[in-house]
């Protein structure tokens, strides 16, 4: 299965990168606010069972992909094509 992990700075945590991006967008004339910058990790997981795959990716997030002190994560799973 294909897994996509979205890692975001937790709500309430200052995100200077997001602020810098927001101010650049404003300089370009876009009317935006509250920009936050996170990270995307795409993975190919061996497991074909969605429940097993999700549990496994959750463990990956807890151990490595996200730091629970400052980041939250979201997991999306998709069947392989073909």
């Amino acid at each position, binding site marked *: 299965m294909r897994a996509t992990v979205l890692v975001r700075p937790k709500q309430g*945590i*200052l995100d*200077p*990168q997001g602020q*810098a991006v927001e101010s650049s967008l404003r300089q370009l004339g876009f009317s935006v606010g509250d920009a936050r910058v996170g990270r995307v990790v795409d993975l190919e997981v061996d497991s074909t069972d969605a429940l097993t795959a999700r549990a496994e990716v959750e463990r990956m997030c807890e151990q*490595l*992909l996200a*730091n629970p*002190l*400052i980041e939250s994560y979201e997991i999306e799973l998709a069947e392989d094509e073909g």
Partner: protein
Amino acid sequence: MTSPQPRIGVLRFPGACDDRDALWAFAALDAEAVFVWHTETELPDLDAVVLPGGFSYGDYLRCGAIARFAPAMAAVSEFASDGGLVLGICNGFQILCEAGLLPGVLRRNESLSFVCRDVPLIVERADTPFTTRCTEGELLTIPVKHGEGCWYADDALYEELVSRRQVVLRYAEPVNGSRADVAGVVNDRGNVMGLMPHPEHAVDPLLGSADGALILSSLVESARERALAAA
């Protein structure tokens, strides 16, 4: 009788850059310093372990996030849980936080700029194995050089650390956006410390300050006492 030189291991990760400075500084402070390669699964006979500064494993994902799983880190965790002295400098601090051996996390500097300059530090505690040569309230000048030194802990964790007196060093002025200007912390037990400033770059007045030697020689002294106690 001459007191024995304590043996201090300096961990070498790929991407480390201050490992040789740390080795040199400890040798200059009358310790026997040896390198320990990151793939080692066991530590040699050591009286203290130092995780030096640098950019271990390219700082990929988050600083220290990959290095914490290096084989040698399992041995360092075990060494620390047996009460061994462990000091993490800069990237070493980041690794110890990611490994859960120290509280909090180091984030991108609030300014998003790399900071490289001498900074004034206030000694909050002089009763840790890493600060016995300092006095409480003393002002030290030690350089920092980091892009990700903004130490963060949430309200609950920070209050807990303050009540347990785990903050050892604070910046005397804003440097990187760290919560309450925290520059260095110890674990609950007091045998593991991390700091963003580089004491190994400040052991000779020729380099601008020798205040870093106060911290490193405190560690050398504490390690020597432990070596003598064990002998």
